């Protein structure tokens, strides 16, 4: 029997829907999961994806991708490439695996939620393929990382990270919970496929893939570029959903997109920012994190806003200012609190690197140079103990990251600002006006105790740094340390910016 051509049946099949006779529609599609809100129920029949794919086509395409990705891996595994990789670069891979491998699995569950509760059969079909994508990403990420576990226990955090309370993972979990699990599926489609996967995964998977190739990590580049081809397809679920929501409830659409973009940009400041501007060896950096953000995120995002008739977010000025400061402070924090992470952060502040940083970020030396000078000087004098933490940083009640955003006051002085909020006889602290505003509006679904609050409430015992490390799941064999055992300090310090040579 000959098969019908796709165009002869897919339109009809895409409209297949059930009329329930033994249960109410509300019982099958409860509002708290489906989130149709002001969008009339029948309007969802008009949901239509731009790029169509059948299951047979999906299997054929994915099979080719798998064969390609795993054959490259097999070839690289037989080589000595992995043994020659820069230690700072390896931190990129460890950070990436820990922060994303099981987040991919969470995304599979999020796709399943859309496959079950999406109010259009076309949407539900696409979400099924999206779920299969995310399962593939989880399996690939775990498998690729597993190769290195025998040599380096930090790679085991590809599996372990999300099962711990490490502060960086709590921050990531906070974002992914907010995007994938606490919202209904309409808001989920706007937060995950539309905002996170259309924009930000480009940054982590495509831009970082270019850095990986330049750094010689063929395997990692192979992995993340293969994953991104799936993201580009299933991210389509956002567009048609946004179109319908904007038409019937533009205020809600604007809020969900704005919120998702802000939360994503905060996490990527610690995920991609240090990777691109500090961990990638200087010789292999093609663009700065800010340049990547401008090209891959801002341009694309502004185009998307215009295309759908959305306004520029109310916080746009803060976001632009943040591109010059957020990730530098977060990198400093990760390096100073290095025993609390599962990778080996490289400081990235040798003389040549500081010249590069200053050329990309005109305020870098003014804001962060003096701090690194003191750190470098302590290392040169053999006082490494003064470059290690004895207390905890205060954490933002929304993004869960250290409160470390510098801004310029009216008197021209730069300093970190704390944004507090008293509510129900309790004082909450935030890294920014925007985090405070989002928390206030959506506090019922985004109220997550920070690691510091758990520490103060007595959940962490003993209540000292050692107790905090144990509580976070950090064992001595994985606790982070400087990637180069401080060798860079010989060429860093106060005169660093004035000289342009690297001696690392």
């Amino acid at each position, binding site marked *: 029997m000959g098969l019908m051509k796709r165009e002869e049946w897919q339109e009809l099949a895409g409209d297949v829907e059930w009329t329930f006779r033994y249960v109410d529609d509300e019982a099958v599609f409860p509002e708290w999961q489906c989130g149709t809100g002001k969008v009339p129920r029948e309007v969802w029949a008009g949901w239509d994806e731009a790029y169509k794919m059948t299951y047979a086509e999906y299997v054929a395409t994915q099979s080719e991708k798998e064969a390609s990705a795993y054959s490259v891996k097999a070839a690289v595994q037989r080589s000595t490439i992995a043994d020659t990789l820069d230690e700072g670069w390896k931190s990129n891979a460890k950070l990436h695996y820990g922060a994303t491998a099981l987040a991919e699995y969470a995304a599979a569950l999020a796709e399943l939620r859309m496959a079950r509760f999406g109010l259009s059969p076309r949407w539900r079909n696409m979400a099924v393929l999206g779920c299969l994508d995310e399962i593939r990403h989880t399996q690939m990420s775990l498998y690729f990382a597993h190769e290195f576990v025998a040599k380096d226990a930090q790679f085991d955090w590809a599996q372990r990270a999300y099962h711990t309370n490490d502060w960086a993972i709590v921050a990531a979990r906070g974002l992914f919970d907010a995007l994938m699990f606490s919202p209904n599926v309409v808001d989920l489609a706007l937060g995950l496929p539309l905002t996170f996967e259309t924009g930000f995964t480009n940054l982590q998977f495509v831009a970082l893939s270019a850095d990986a190739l330049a750094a010689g990590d063929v395997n990692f580049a192979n992995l993340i570029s293969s994953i991104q081809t799936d993201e580009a397809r299933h991210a389509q679920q956002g567009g048609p959903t946004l179109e319908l929501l904007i038409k019937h409830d533009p205020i809600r659409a604007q809020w969900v997109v704005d919120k998702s973009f802000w939360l994503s940009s905060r996490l990527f400041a610690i995920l991609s920012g240090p990777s691109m501007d500090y961990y990638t060896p200087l010789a292999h950096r093609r663009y700065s994190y800010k340049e990547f953000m401008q090209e891959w995120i801002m341009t694309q995002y502004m185009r998307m806003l215009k295309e759908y008739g959305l306004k520029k977010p109310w916080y746009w000025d803060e976001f632009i200012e943040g591109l010059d400061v957020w990730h530098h*402070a977060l990198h*400093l*924090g990760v390096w*100073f609190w290095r025993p609390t992470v599962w990778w080996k952060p490289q400081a990235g502040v040798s003389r040549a690197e500081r010249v590069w940083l200053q050329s990309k970020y005109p305020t870098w030396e003014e*804001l*962060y140079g*003096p*701090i690194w*000078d*003191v*750190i470098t000087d*302590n290392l040169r004098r053999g006082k490494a103990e*003064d*470059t290690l933490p*004895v*207390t*905890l*940083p*205060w954490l933002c009640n929304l993004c869960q990251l*250290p*409160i*470390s955003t*510098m801004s310029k006051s009216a008197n021209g*002085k*730069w*300093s*970190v600002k*704390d944004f*507090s909020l008293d509510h129900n006889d*309790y*004082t909450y*602290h935030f890294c920014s006006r925007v985090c405070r505003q989002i928390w206030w509006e959506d506090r019922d679904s985004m109220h997550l105790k920070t690691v*510091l609050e758990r*520490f*103060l409430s*007595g959940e962490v015992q*003993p*209540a*000292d*740094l050692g107790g905090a490390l144990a509580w976070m799941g950090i064992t001595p064999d994985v606790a982070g340390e400087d990637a180069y055992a401080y060798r860079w300090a010989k060429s860093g310090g106060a005169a660093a910016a004035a000289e342009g040579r690297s001696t690392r």
Partner: protein
Amino acid sequence: MSLVGSPVSSPVSSEPQAIPINALFGSDFVTLLVVVLSTDTMADVSRKVAANVVGKRIAPRRADMAVYYRDELVPKDWTVARAGITPLQFVLVDYVDD
């Protein structure tokens, strides 16, 4: 070393109470958990906050330090209790010659 000390109890107690504060020192890049006592003077608070920062991320200077709470300078001889600094509040410490 314990970071928290004894738990905060009744504010009217005459015994020193541990007060965890959210502290920033001058041009440091991050705010920190620092535990002070209700009986600490602002000079004590300055020292406790500076101990986490000065010589570690901020270069030491021959200058007095001051405490600012709710954007107001707090007299150096005032105690934490007198200044009304309660747990979880933000406090800024800085050199005063700027």
